[in-house]
């Protein structure tokens, strides 16, 4: 799984590609936590290139949301589509996480 980190208007934009599962979730978690420690600010994850997410991945997202909340920042998800969207829907994550159709939309939401 590949994680691209970008910064735009004091907001981290993570672009995930590949799979977020039991193997890659720890890696993701470690990177994001380090990122938030170093530079705590809002985070947008772009799911456009993510093919699959497992329960481990969902768990990692939860941890991400919790940490961001602690830091007093916002966590948004963008371009959650396909299989990942289905999983989000079934597991109810769609209603818990802030979802947007585009990164721009998410940025706008952060304001």
């Amino acid at each position, binding site marked *: 799984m590949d994680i691209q980190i970008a910064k735009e208007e004091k907001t981290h934009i993570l672009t995930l590609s590949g799979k977020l599962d039991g193997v890659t979730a720890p890696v993701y978690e470690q990177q994001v936590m380090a990122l938030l420690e170093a530079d705590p600010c809002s985070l947008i994850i772009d799911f456009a290139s993510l093919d699959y997410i497992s329960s*481990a991945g969902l768990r990692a997202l939860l*941890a991400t949301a919790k940490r961001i909340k602690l830091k007093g920042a916002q966590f948004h998800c963008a371009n959650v589509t396909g299989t990942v969207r289905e999983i989000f829907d079934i597991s109810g994550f769609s209603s818990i996480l802030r979802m947007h159709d585009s990164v721009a939309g998410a940025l706008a939401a952060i304001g």
Partner: protein
Amino acid sequence: MRATKSIARTFTLIVSVCTVLIFSVAIGSFYHRSRVALEQEVANNAAHLVLASINRVETTLHAIGKVAEDTSRSLEIAGYHDQSLTTLLKETLLDNRDIHGFGAAFDLNPAFNPPHPVVPYYFRQGERLVFAPEGNFQHLSQDWYQIPKELGQMAWSEPSFDKASGTILMTSCSVPIFSDNGREKQVRGVVVADVSLEWLTELVASIRVLDTGYSFLLSRNGTFLTHPDRDLIMNETIFSLAESRHKPDLREIGRKMVLGESGFVAYTNIHDVSTLMYYAPVPSTGWTLAVVFPEAELYADVRNLTLVVAGIALAGILLLTAAVYWVARRVTAPLGALAEATEAIASGHFDTELPAVKSSDEVGKLTLAFTAMTGALKKYIRNLTETTAAKERIQSELKMATDIQASLLPQLFPAFPDRPEFDIHAAMDPAKEVGGDFYDFFFIDPTNLCFLMADVADKGVPAALYMMVAKILLKTEGQRLGEPEQILSRVNEILAADNDSCMFTTVFCAILNTENGEVRFANAGHNAPVLISGGQANFLSIRAGFVLGPIAETVYTAERITLEPGDVLFLYTDGITEAKSRSEELYGEERLLQTLQAASRQELAEMIRTVRAEVFRHADGAPQSDDVTMLAIKYRGMAARNP
């Protein structure tokens, strides 16, 4: 071991060979140049020596020749005859102490008016002069007369021993006396001076040539006039010697000498001694004086010096060889020992002692490095062994944990034989890695059966532990609260309280009213079950709901459906739909529906077996990555109670 020895040897050999070569070239070159220089020196010295000696000889002989010549001229010009002639001869002899005998010999032809005696002759005897004329006319056919007569010029005769003692070497200088006939000059007589060559042989013998060198004098014909080997004198010519000793090169040298040449030549003499010879002619007589330098003596000094130098060089080379070899061994021996020790270590004896580090050079460093490596290797292997053992232990414990887990789920079927109004069947096939799928069913009260399916997030031990907790909570709260949404809410609260790790589980919780077939259910993020009714299998449309555990405030909503007798509700986890084939194709919801459709008439146990079989067939040997869990419940209706 052999390898390190040959490095030392090869190195030593190369060094030795190179050193030997260098020294050989140097010494050889030095020796050769010295010899060349010395030879040049010798040639010069020899020339001086010979020419000086020849000069001394020549001076005397030339003077004698002059006397004879002057006398002859006198006899030609003035009319000396008989008495005046003999007086002239006597006086001349008196004046010239170098001459032994002096006289004249005349042709008998009356036209020349020969004197009487025809051969007046004086010779010395001690202090006296003896008059000894010869009247036997032998002179006419003797060399000393004939040669100057026929050649018309002064001639020195071939030396011979004197008649008196036969021990003194004599020669004669004869000069023709011409008479002018007006038309042509004719020889009418000869003036002859006999010369003893004792002084000459002494002079030549006194020529000092090194210690073992010598000189010799050859006559015009090549006869030895002087020579250290007295047997040769007057007996052999240089040519007869060359013939008897089979030395053609000597003959060639002799011919050059006889021709009056001078030269410096290398020559191996009759005693097989290598020599250098310088020769030059005595101008008056055409004799040849030669000095012979034995090469061995000549070059003795140079050779000795070279030998000393060579000896020193050799000693030096030997020392160098020994030193080089010693150093090489010092280097390679530890390497050899190191190699041996390494071999031992490689074969598993990690505690093999490496050779002690004696030096701080490269070999010492190598040894230290090896020691460090061995230590690290030992530690690593120890760790590995421990880790492997630990891992294996964990594996076995996990296996046990999985077994324990599986055994916790209700496995006894038929579960409620005495309640024919419904049937329930379930199965769970755990994946390799211990997982977190579970199901449960239990009576809340005699009429309400609670049944649920859950999928804990992630895998491994955390999932397994969470699963245990969730299952127990669900059961206890389930039996206490009796309504699905309440059960989920309550359990969610409890779980969310100590949930730093954000673990969650999906749960589908349902309660069947066995009297009327009503099913009340609530969903926490679990996939929708399949309702098989009237031979049709379709996914139940349900609300999603958030997963159980992370957020305490999550609200769950109850829904209800009513099962007609014969309806089957099929609960499952994503282990079925996400089962991958070898080509990574998911089993998928469609196939599940198809399978359930096809098995709709089967008894639950069989249906579950079918689904399981289908899933495993789809997997076709691909490793099972997730637990395969399913629960099927069929409502038969109250009528089934009383057949």
